């Protein structure tokens, strides 16, 4: 299949990934049937993870790996979960994409990977303090279009 990330884009990403620090794990969830964008998303992530050795990718099927999907609260495909990796330990960061991260969302994914790797959020002190003291689960869903 044709490369999704052309040479120029791949070069730019490699440059951006120069500042990566700690390993990052990407979990891809797809489905063999009735999933329009699963193949393309999986290919994009495969090409992306090949650009830097600190980036790890695991491929899962929503049905066949139902336990993993449940663990990461994935219920639709294609989905990507961003986690940090410490040896064999994968630490869920609560960050998920539902749908192919194309266009602007691709930049979001790249930025998320960099933040996760540097283990920083870039948020202000007041925001961080409030979020860290939350005692109830909070679910944020951001609807976007990949244009």
């Amino acid at each position: 299949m044709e490369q999704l990330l052309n040479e120029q884009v791949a070069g730019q990403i490699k440059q951006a990934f120069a500042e990566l620090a700690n390993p990052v794990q990407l979990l891809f969830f797809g489905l063999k049937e009735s999933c329009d964008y699963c193949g393309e998303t999986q290919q994009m992530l495969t090409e992306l993870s090949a650009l830097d050795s600190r980036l790890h990718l695991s491929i899962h099927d929503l049905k066949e790996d139902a336990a993993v999907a449940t663990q990461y609260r994935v219920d639709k495909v294609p989905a990507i979960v961003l986690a940090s990796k410490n040896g064999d330990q994968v630490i869920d960061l609560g960050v998920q994409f539902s749908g192919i991260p194309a266009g602007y969302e691709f930049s979001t994914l790249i930025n998320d990977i960099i933040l996760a790797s540097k283990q920083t959020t870039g948020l202000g002190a007041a925001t961080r303090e409030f979020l860290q003291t939350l005692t109830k689960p909070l679910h944020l869903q951001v609807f976007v279009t990949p244009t």
Partner: protein
Amino acid sequence: MLAHQMAMENPSMIRAEAVDAMEFPELSDQFSVQGVPQTVIDSGKGIVVGAAGEAQMLAEIKRALQN
């Protein structure tokens, strides 16, 4: 993405999901998404239409959590 940054701050409590509105129209309809970005807090306890800054998003989250 702001919501993702917030999740990373406290992943045991916060989950942030970027949803492609075109690929998941039923979910978009459920929350009456007409423009993007639109942030839905706790399945509709709060809704932020358009791109919001950190302070505005935080205020909306606080408001939603009180409901």
